[in-house]
């Protein structure tokens, strides 16, 4: 490989090299400009040493493969790639904002801020995983907070695209990742589990909450494995300010067995956005680590465990979706309730990992002041919540699988669509009233949700009997006959 020497002022493929802004072991970053590109961009050039370090080269190849295939606000926008035969480089958007690394200095952060940051990073992971890419090196320095507020993930050198060859598979003499953040299955060289990113995010949240890394900074490969048998000190023991629900979320992310973690970043984001409804388990109140004896038993049980490359897990959202059920509690919708529950049951039967979010909109009247109490003096919001839970009771779901939300809004359709967007909902179930000419003319809540929701929408109708069809036809005819 022959590489020209880059310096400020030189020109490469139409890019004028500006200031050098970072020089590290893996890569150098230069600000660059190009006529026609009016946003700040940077050129990332791999540091290729005389020894021809394969990991750096392959990591850079991986990023060259993955970054051009990504889009959206949660990754840097891609501009150009330079050929390995001449001068390898990547040109991408320079993300203006703050590295999450700078937040570490302020740790422990207030719980609300940790929850908000966690939700932003989880949301970025939702978007990345939906593009079939796992980051596999989630840590503070690889997360930027844009000025507009969204988290953006950077550095895809250890990432994996589930439908493309894993070029890093061959570099598997050592586990790849960052010691304090690496997930247990990555230590066993599995690079295909989306829940590895959830684990690393759990490490990050723990660190922000306690100012301590849950497994320290492992210096040797053998000490990486300590996290397999010894649980971290519960965060509330280090920082009593942390609410039990946040400890629950963090420790669930840090489960050794991926099956025990959140199934998807969407489910994690959902809990972080709805902290009051996080189902609390023993994790929430734990104050002690597991004992040395327990750690020894786990160590003993793990002997002989096999690692190595695995076939990619199927796109996780097919297995563990978030389904939102829009429940209209008004009396005229009552005939539909059973039908709506029947549809929920069908979903539950086929997808064991599904989470159900029951949503009801308390419609506000734009002409009167917001009212909290009804004519008999009951709290309307609480009353609705009780009715919503009553509606769901026949489903017989445990609290980890179902949540309830009453949203106050003037426009039910807008409220439902916003909720679906904010919570990464995969599918909406919504009841529709029997069709009528008037409703067809004015438009209905369900049709507006169908038109605007960011996901699949299933419209549930009560089965129409032949008698009802005839009656409707008669009514239409009568209307047509009238002058």
């Amino acid at each position, binding site marked *: 490989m022959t590489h020209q020497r880059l310096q400020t002022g030189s020109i490469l493929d139409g890019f004028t090299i500006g200031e050098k802004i970072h020089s590290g072991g893996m890569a150098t970053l230069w600000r660059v400009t190009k006529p026609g590109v009016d946003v700040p961009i940077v050129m990332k050039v791999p540091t290729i040493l005389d020894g021809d370090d394969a990991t750096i080269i392959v990591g850079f190849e991986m990023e060259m*493969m993955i970054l051009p295939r990504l889009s959206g606000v949660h990754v840097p926008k891609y501009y150009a790639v330079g*050929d*390995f035969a001449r001068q390898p480089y990547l040109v991408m958007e320079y993300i203006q904002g703050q590295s999450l690394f700078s937040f570490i200095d302020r740790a422990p952060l207030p719980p609300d801020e940790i929850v908000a940051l966690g939700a932003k990073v989880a949301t970025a992971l939702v978007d990345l995983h939906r593009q079939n890419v796992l980051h596999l090196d989630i840590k503070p320095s690889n997360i930027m907070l844009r000025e507009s507020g969204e988290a953006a993930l950077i550095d895809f050198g250890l990432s994996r695209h589930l439908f*493309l060859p894993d070029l890093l598979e061959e570099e598997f003499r050592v586990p790849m990742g960052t010691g304090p953040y690496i997930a247990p299955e990555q230590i066993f060289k599995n690079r295909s589990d989306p829940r590895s990113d959830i684990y690393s995010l759990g490490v990050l949240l723990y660190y922000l909450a306690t100012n301590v890394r849950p497994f320290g900074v492992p210096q040797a490969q053998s000490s990486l494995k300590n996290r397999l048998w010894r649980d971290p000190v519960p965060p509330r023991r280090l920082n009593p300010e942390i609410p039990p629900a946040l400890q629950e979320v963090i420790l669930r992310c840090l489960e050794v067995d991926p099956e025990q973690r959140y199934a998807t970043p969407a489910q994690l984001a959902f809990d972080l956005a709805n902290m009051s409804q996080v189902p609390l388990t023993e994790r929430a109140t734990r104050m002690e680590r597991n004992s040395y004896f327990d750690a020894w038993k786990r160590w003993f049980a793990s002997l002989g465990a096999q690692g190595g490359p695995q076939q990619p897990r199927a796109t996780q959202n097919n297995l563990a979706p978030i389904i939102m059920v829009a429940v209209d509690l008004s009396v005229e919708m009552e005939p539909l309730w059973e039908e709506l529950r029947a549809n929920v049951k069908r979903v539950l039967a086929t997808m064991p990992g599904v989470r159900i979010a029951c949503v009801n909109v308390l419609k506000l009247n734009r002409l009167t002041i917001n009212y909290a109490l009804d004519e008999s003096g009951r709290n309307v919001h609480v009353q609705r919540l009780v009715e919503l839970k009553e509606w769901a009771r026949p489903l017989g779901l445990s609290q980890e699988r179902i949540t309830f939300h009453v949203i106050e809004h003037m426009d039910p359709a807008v409220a439902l669509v916003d909720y679906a967007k904010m919570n990464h909902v995969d599918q909406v179930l919504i009841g529709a009233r029997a069709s009528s000419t008037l409703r067809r003319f004015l438009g209905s809540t369900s049709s507006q949700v169908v038109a605007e929701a960011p996901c699949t929408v299933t419209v549930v109708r009560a089965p129409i009997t032949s008698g009802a069809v005839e009656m409707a036809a008669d009514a239409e005819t009568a209307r047509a006959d009238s002058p």
Partner: protein
Amino acid sequence: MRIAFLSDIHGNREALDACLAHAERRKADRLVFLGDLVGYGADPVYVVDKVREAMAKGALSILGNHDEAAARGVTTGMNDYARAALEWTFRELDADSRRFLADLPMKIEEDDRIYVHSEASAPLSWAYITDVATAERSLRSTNHRITFCGHVHKPQLYHMQPQRPPLLFVPQGSTPIPLMASRKWLAVQGAVGQPRDHNPLAAYTIYDTDTNELSFQRVSYDIDATAQKIHAANLPQILAARLFIGR
């Protein structure tokens, strides 16, 4: 340019037509046939005519071991049912078609690519690429960046850095795969006419020379019709049965 690579058609008219229509809808503007046009299937004449027609419009075609055997009537080294089908195929083809098959080249080199039926190190010995070792032998024998071959009826993609052994990637779906210029690639096609990777769908690939991306395609076709013709021609029944299960 978008090149469709079709290998191991094996006289399967329905699978060939389905793949050609599929490739046309995906704007393939060049066809390359990677050998084994005939053998096993009941439509050798149709397939040969169709390929000759395509070649008149610029398509490329190379020789497969079944084409060679059918052209010369020599079936040494073949198993019983392959031999039965080839003897039948030999009788079906006229002298002109046999001469066409016999004259097909062993390999074609084009830009940074080489096209061959079995593998690149010794095309005449018809060796199979079944693992990293056989892939490495082929990859090291050529300076071309990408080798396209068929012969084993199982889609596989090997990639290799200069100083390292190759790695196998088993294609998942049709996501276009960038064939990074820093490595050499060996794209083993699945079979159009007789898939053996436990997936009965016809297999072919499209390579885009502008984007340097390869996509593995799978196409459904009327297997019942193909099987009925194999029965009607009194060819060994296993040749029909295996199509339904892709083995």
